């Protein structure tokens, strides 16, 4: 017999088993445990046979409990105590709340590295060579449109001239810069917009928040056409070129649907 089998028999109280007795003669560890089992066994027997102390007369205990102030008043407990009690009683609810709290902390606190578009660069290439470009009117024109921080550089080669305009805050600014350049210099080339991306660290919440935008809509006193124009102008100002708003009115109900190119919304 192995020790685990001997211990199982000890646990079941089968202490007179022949094989067990034989094993106990050979194994000092199990013999010690058997001695402990025997002591517990006999102690329990002894207490079972002990005379039960006289119970308190039922009438006495009833009178004592009935006259106790706590028997007639419901104990006031704090809201926190009640909440703790409810949570302790409902383990699944506590687990769910704990999980939700952990998810919230993860969502708002744990930082992740992600890329963010911080502006656009415009490259106008393929301009006919041999033309010296005066960039001052372009800078003034862009400043007039509200873009103060742009910078322009040029590259002249024997085959073509290229222009880079940087510091454009969004794609719409890049489109406007392309148009301003063509109008004020009279030169044409191939325009390409390149988003400027920087790696930043932030929580998932911060990432979501960055991608949110808000549009203010004035409902009273405006026709659906005016509302449409207002929404589209706001989208345009945020750099969402081609954004479209459809306003439909059915009695008192008004529905506004906003579509932004490149998104599924």
């Amino acid at each position, binding site marked *: 017999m192995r020790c685990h089998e001997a211990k199982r028999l000890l646990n079941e109280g089968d202490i007179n088993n022949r094989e067990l007795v034989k094993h106990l003669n050979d194994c000092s560890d199990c013999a*010690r445990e058997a001695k402990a089992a025997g002591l*517990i066994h006999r102690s329990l027997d002894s207490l*079972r046979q002990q005379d039960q102390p006289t119970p*308190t007369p039922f009438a006495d205990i009833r009178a004592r409990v009935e006259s106790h102030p*706590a028997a007639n008043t419901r104990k006031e407990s704090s809201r926190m105590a009640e909440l703790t009690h409810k949570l302790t009683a409902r383990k699944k609810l506590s687990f769910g709340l704990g999980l939700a709290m952990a998810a919230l902390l993860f969502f708002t606190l744990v930082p992740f590295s992600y890329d963010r578009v911080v502006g656009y660069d415009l490259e106008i290439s393929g301009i006919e060579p041999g033309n010296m470009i005066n960039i001052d009117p372009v800078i003034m024109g862009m400043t007039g449109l509200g873009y103060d921080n742009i910078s322009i550089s040029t590259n002249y080669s024997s085959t073509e001239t290229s222009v880079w305009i940087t510091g454009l805050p969004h794609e719409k600014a890049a489109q406007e810069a392309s148009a301003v350049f063509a109008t004020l210099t009279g030169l044409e080339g191939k325009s390409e917009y390149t988003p400027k991306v920087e790696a930043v660290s932030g929580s998932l919440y911060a990432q979501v928040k960055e991608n949110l935008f808000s549009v203010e809509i004035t409902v009273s006193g405006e026709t659906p056409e005016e509302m449409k124009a207002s929404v589209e102008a706001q989208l345009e100002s945020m750099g969402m070129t081609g954004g479209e708003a459809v306003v439909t009115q059915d009695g008192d109900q008004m529905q506004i649907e906003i579509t932004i190119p490149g998104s599924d919304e």
Partner: protein
Amino acid sequence: MMRDLFWKLLEPEHPKAEAFCRKLMRNREEGDDLYQDALLLALRNFGSLKDHESFRPWLYRIIVNGYKSRFRRPWWRRHATLTPKLEETRSTGDPDGQLTARRWLERAFEGLTPEESTLVTLFELEEWNTAELARLYRISEGAVRARLFRSRRKMRQTIDRFISQNETSNRIKEADYALPRGETSSE
């Protein structure tokens, strides 16, 4: 009306429930305090008991929870309630080794959690069966058996450690093993 019903349902349970509290606390006064606290709580919340057939497990659940909550108290409050353990035994007198039996059991129970202590007390001393215990603890009978198995093993190991530590230093006398020989039990 509800109160009368409460007392009517309690009357047949009273002697055993009170004795159970005394055994749990290993002291008459402490046991009576536990029993009175449990009755006050039970009386106040009796309206929430829908099935009066379940009165017994419901009452014992309140007792067991009250007992466990005493161990959740801060240590300075707990100490005051747990020190006078052997008082009752001394007062009854115990020439046949019942004092010794109590001492060994107290040592064995030291290795158990309050939950395990109540389980072993109910099974071994109050003679509840596993089905009744499963209903009380709201677990399966298999889980009750598993807990009993673990509790007994822990008790044996606690006593085994005690003997190992004290036999070598001759702090245990032969008389400490002199327990009355009882009938074979289920332990």
